[in-house]
């Protein structure tokens, strides 16, 4: 029996259910997948999912994504060879060469932000220069080139963090279109960053850069 066979689907199941108010919240689905949902709520979620195409697809998809995701390896802390440093005490060497203890990780295994930079591939934003003052009509964003085949996405936000404009490109520069220029007020600060998806599916980001409008 192949339920995916649309020809053999007398009840149009391939288009059947739709998310509605009865569907469990994302928090409940996540707690269920983590095995942290109370027994009664789990029973309710399962009963609902048995009849809801969308929720089963969500459960199956999320479960697959979690199962196939490999967390990036953590870099081991390197300890330099002692070599001829016998004169120094082991304690002093450790103080010098080993990173200080990190604060406890969060419940999600997230690390102390102080060491975040290690796993993040960076590339540089070039234009407009950080802190530069530019006219909205003349705004051109440029950044360092990464290997051919990389896809970039530039995001422009205001001071409150509201995204004003975002564009995807294969190029290493973008001009703010005339249609977006009116979104920028004179004399205000704005922020931009570029994210990149490389051909090997790794990612890279620029730092958030700031400019002011004239």
């Amino acid at each position: 029996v192949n339920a995916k066979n649309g020809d053999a689907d007398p009840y149009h199941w391939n288009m059947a259910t739709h998310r509605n108010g009865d569907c469990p919240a994302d928090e409940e689905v996540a707690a269920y997948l983590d095995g942290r949902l109370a027994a009664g709520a789990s029973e309710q979620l399962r009963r609902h999912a048995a009849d809801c195409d969308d929720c089963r697809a969500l459960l199956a998809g999320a479960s697959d994504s979690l199962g196939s995701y490999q967390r990036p390896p953590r870099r081991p802390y390197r300890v330099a060879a002692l070599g001829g440093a016998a004169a120094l005490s082991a304690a002093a060497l450790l103080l010098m060469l080993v990173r200080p203890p990190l604060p406890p990780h969060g419940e999600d295994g997230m690390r102390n932000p102080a060491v975040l930079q290690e796993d993040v591939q960076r590339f540089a934003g070039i234009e407009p220069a950080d802190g530069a003052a530019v006219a909205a009509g003349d705004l051109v964003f440029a950044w360092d080139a990464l290997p051919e085949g990389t896809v970039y996405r530039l995001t422009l936000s205001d001071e409150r963090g509201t995204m004003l404009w975002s564009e995807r490109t294969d190029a290493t520069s973008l001009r703010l279109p005339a249609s977006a220029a009116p979104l920028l007020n004179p004399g205000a600060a704005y922020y931009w960053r570029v994210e990149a998806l490389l051909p090997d599916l790794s990612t890279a980001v620029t730092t958030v850069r700031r400019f002011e409008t004239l």
Partner: protein
Amino acid sequence: MTSDRPYMLDALLHGTTAAERDAGWDWFVEQHSRLLLHTVRHAASGSRDDAMDRYAYVLEQLRANECRRLRTWADDGRSRLSTWLVVVARRLCADFQRQRYGRTRPDAVSAAQQARRFLADLVAEELREDVTSDPAEWTGAEQSLRVGELHERLADALDSLDAADRLLLALRFRDALPAARIAPILSLPSPFHVYRRLNHVLAHLRRELESRGIEDAVP
């Protein structure tokens, strides 16, 4: 605010200045872009351009309304952030898909009713040979009568199952998922346990049908 939550996440959700919140968002994206990209790529078989569009949509929605969704997760506190992010990204990808390509809804019969009917239909295929005579030997009118009867009794029998077993049947027969994918959804330790549970449920349904008068060729 919990003390074991990374302080940059607190900066994102509770920062008092825009710069603080921006730094928190920057940190959040750096921390989770790999997981989110993995999820959006996994959610669709489209091109990398398509994946980037979905990724941008997911980030946009996560940041919308001052990170309303993230606040909901933080207030809830039952799931790991990574699990929750995958669920949300999956949900948003489905929304993105609907916005871009639309979706047709059936009408008249409710989704739940359709689910039961379809599930009965699928399970009936599995059980028919066991609980009835050879359908090929039936006349047209007899066939309709017997199949209708079988579906009706089977729908009743399905309602007697507990939620986990009904979900198991739906995943297996409606969605045609392999046992290896079903196991983690039902917290079963291995595909072997899925098959064992499936056999148990089908045996239960056979007994239920027999007890409801469907035995051999005579319903």
